[in-house]
C-alpha cells in the first residue's frame, strides 16, 4: 500500500516536472535560443554549448538568476518571475543529459614565443587572399589542401619539394593547370586546381582529363605574399607546434 502510494506520488511529481520542462523549453526559445547566444538546440551560438555537460542544479539557478558579470550572460531576475526561472532551470538541466564524462584536466597552456605568435597571425592573415591558411590546416583553422604541417619536418619554406603536384590537361581547349589529385572514384577524378589564390576542387570525367606527373608549380609561388622576414616568423610558428 505504502509502496503503491509512493509510486503514485512519484508519477504526479514526474508529471509536474514534465510541465515545468515544457514551459521551460518555451522560455528557453524566447530568451536563450538566438543563434547569437546558446542557439535553438543549445549547441550553437557564441555562448557556451549547453548540451552534453553535467550541471549542478544550484549553480544553474545562480547563473540564470544573476548572470555572469563581464560576459554576455545576462541576469534574468529582472526579466522572469521566480517560477519561470525554475521552469527554465528544469529545461536547461535536461539538456545536460547527465551522461557526459567530466572533462579531463586541461594541460598547462603552451606559451608560444612572440615570433611564433606573429608567425601564426601571418599564416592565417585574412588581409592576404591566398595566405598559408588557404591551403594548410593547423590547430583547427585553415583549409586542408596541402600536406599536414603539424607532422611534417620543414627545413625551409622556399625550397620545399612538391613532387605530388601534377599537371592536369583538360580536354576541350582549357589550358593545362597545376593540380593535386584528391581522389579517383569510378570514372571520376577530383583534383585541386592551384591556378588561383583560392584552390578549386574540380571534378572531371576520367576521360576528360589527362594527368602528367610533373609540374612547373613551385611552393615559392605561393609565398609571394610574404617578405623573407615574415617567412622566418612563419617558420618559427611551424617549429613551435
Amino acid at each position, binding site marked *: 500500500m505504502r509502496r503503491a502510494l509512493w509510486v503514485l506520488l512519484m508519477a504526479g511529481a514526474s508529471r509536474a516536472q514534465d510541465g515545468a520542462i515544457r514551459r521551460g523549453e*518555451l522560455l528557453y*526559445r*524566447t*530568451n536563450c*535560443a*538566438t*543563434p*547569437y547566444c546558446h*542557439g*535553438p538546440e543549445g549547441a*550553437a*551560438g*557564441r555562448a557556451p554549448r549547453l548540451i552534453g555537460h553535467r550541471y549542478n542544479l544550484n549553480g544553474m539557478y545562480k547563473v540564470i538568476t544573476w548572470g555572469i558579470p563581464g560576459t*554576455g550572460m*545576462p541576469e534574468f531576475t529582472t526579466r522572469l518571475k521566480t517560477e519561470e526561472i525554475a521552469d527554465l532551470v528544469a529545461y536547461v538541466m535536461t539538456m545536460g543529459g547527465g551522461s557526459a564524462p567530466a572533462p579531463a584536466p586541461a594541460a598547462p597552456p603552451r606559451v608560444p614565443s612572440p615570433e611564433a605568435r606573429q608567425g601564426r597571425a601571418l599564416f*592565417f592573415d*585574412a*588581409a592576404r*587572399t591566398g595566405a598559408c*591558411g*588557404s591551403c594548410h*590546416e593547423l590547430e*583547427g*583553422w*585553415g*583549409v586542408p589542401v596541402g600536406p599536414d604541417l603539424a607532422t611534417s619536418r620543414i627545413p625551409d619554406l622556399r625550397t620545399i619539394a612538391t613532387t605530388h603536384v601534377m599537371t592536369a590537361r583538360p580536354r576541350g581547349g*582549357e589550358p593545362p593547370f597545376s593540380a593535386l589529385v584528391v581522389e579517383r572514384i569510378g570514372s571520376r577524378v577530383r583534383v585541386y*586546381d592551384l*591556378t*588561383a*589564390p*583560392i*584552390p*578549386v*576542387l*574540380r*571534378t572531371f570525367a576520367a576521360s576528360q582529363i589527362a594527368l602528367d606527373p610533373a609540374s612547373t608549380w613551385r611552393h615559392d609561388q605561393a609565398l609571394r605574399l610574404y617578405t623573407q622576414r615574415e617567412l622566418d616568423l612563419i617558420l618559427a610558428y611551424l617549429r613551435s607546434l
Partner: protein
Amino acid sequence: MKQALLLLATAAALCAQTGAAGDDWPHYYGAYSAWRYSALAQVNRGNVQKLAPAWVFQTGDYENGLQATPIVSGGVLYLSTSNAWVFALDGATGRLIWEYRFPLSKSIPLYGKQNRGVAVGRGRVYLGTADNHLVALDQATGEEVWQVNVEDSRQCGCNITGAPLVVKDMVITGVTGGDSAHRGYLTAFDAATGHMRWRFHTIPGLGQKGHETWPGESWRYGGGATWMTGSFDRDLNLLYWGVGNAAADLNAALRRGDNLYTDSVIALDPDTGKLQWHYQEIPQDVWDYDASYEMELVDLAIAGRPRKALVHVTKSGFTWVLDRKTGEFLAAWPYVKNYNWITGISRDGKLLGRNEPEAGKTKLLCPSTIGGKSWNQSAYSPRTGWVYIPVLEICSDLIVRDEDPQEGRGFTGGNWIMKPPPHAKQESYLAAFDPVSGKQQWSVPATTWLLASVLATAGDLVFTGDPEGNFFALDAQTGKRLWSFPTGAGHRGSAITYSIGGRQYIATPSGWGSLIGQAHAALWPGPLPRSGSALFVFALPEAPR
C-alpha cells in the same frame, strides 16, 4: 501611321518592362533590376479567385524552414534548402529531375544553416553553403563540377546564406560575418573553372583610400558583410551590392570614424571588381542597420528630370533613392511610423538628430535590430509605379557592452531585446508607397508579422505569405484581398512566377525558420508558426480537353 503608333506603344511598354521577369525567373530578384516583378498577366485580378494548386514538392529538409527563392530557367525550377540540398524539378509537373546534397561540415558559424537560393547560368547551378563553400553543379545532371572553400568558416566565423549572382561569365558571392570580428568582402569566380577573378574588401586595407576611417586595427574586424544579393545594370556595366553594418554592432568605441564602406551602396565594375562609386547611408553605424537589402533599379522622373534611380529599402526604416549612374543622393523617406534613431534626413542626405545607444543604459530604439523590414524583399510594379514593402513596427532595447574583437567570434558590442514601440503597439503590414515621395498608398495589416518576400505581377496582383501559413493575393491598386490559400506552415521564403507552355505558375516556399523567425514567441502571443519545407505551385485550372 497606325502601325507606327502601335510600334511606338510597344517600344514604350518594352522600356517600362525591362526590369520585369518573363517566362523564366532567372535571377534571385527575378531580373537584374531586382523588382521582384513579372510581366506575366494570365493570372490577374479578374481570375485569381480560381487559382488552385498544380503540384507540391516536399524537400524533406525541415531544418530552419524553407527560405529560398526558386530559380526557373528553361522551364526547370531549381530549389535549395538550409542543409545545402538542391533539387531540379520540372516546373510544370514537379517531377524530380535530379537532386544534390552537399556534405556540410559540423562546424557552422553563428549565422546558422540558412539558404536563400541558388544562381543559374552558363550551364551551371551555383550554391553557397552554411560552411562557406561555393559549389557549381552541372545544370543538366546535378553533378558537382567545382567547389571552393571561400574562407575557412572556423576562422572567419562567416558563411554564405544569400544567393549568388551570375554576371557575364562569373558567379559572384558575398559572405555573412557582420556581427563577428571579420572584414567583409565580395568575391567573383570564373563560372567555368572556379578560378577567383577578383575580391573586393568592403573595408579598405592598409594604404587604400577610406582606410583612414578606421582607427588602429579596427579595420581588420569591422564587419561590412555582403550577406544579401546584389543588382546589376547591364547598360551601365555596374554591379551594385549593399554592405552590412559595422562591427562591433552597437559599440563604436574602437572604431571612431565613418567606417567606410559599411552601411553603403557600392557600385563596382564587374569585370575588375574596382569601385566606381559608393554612397554611405549611415556613417559610424551603432544600431546594426545593415544597408544590405535589395536595390531596385528603376527609371524615375525626379524633380522633373528623368533619372536612372536605385531605390533602396533598408533595415533602418528608411528608403534611400540614389542616382545609380553617379551615386548622387536624390531622396530618402521613412517607410515605418516608429523611428527614433534619427529625427530625419536632410535634403542633402545627412542624418539629423542621431540617437545612439549608450553604455550602462538600456535604450529603446526603433526600428529594431531586425529592421523596419527583415531581409525578405519588397517588390516594385511599373504598372502602379509603387513599391510594396512588408513593414515591421518593432523596436529593441539596446544594451551596450565593451568587447574586444577575437577573429571570427561574435562581436556585437551589446545585446538587444525586441520590444513594442514606445506608446504604440507592435504591428506589421504590407503597404504600397510612391518610391520618390514615400507617400503611402494603402496598407493591409498582418495578424502577427510579415517575413516573406513580396511578388508583384502585370496581372496587377501582389502576393505574399504570413506566419500562420496563408499565401495570399492582393489587388495591387487597392490592397483588397482577392485570394488566399492555407499551405499549413509559416512563410519565410520568396514567391516567384513563371510560364511553361502558355500556362502561368505561381510558386511559394512554405516552412517557418531563420534567425529572426525564432524571435516570434518573444513578440507575439498564440501558437508558434509551423515549420515545414514544401514548395506550393499554383495555376489556373486547365480548360477541359
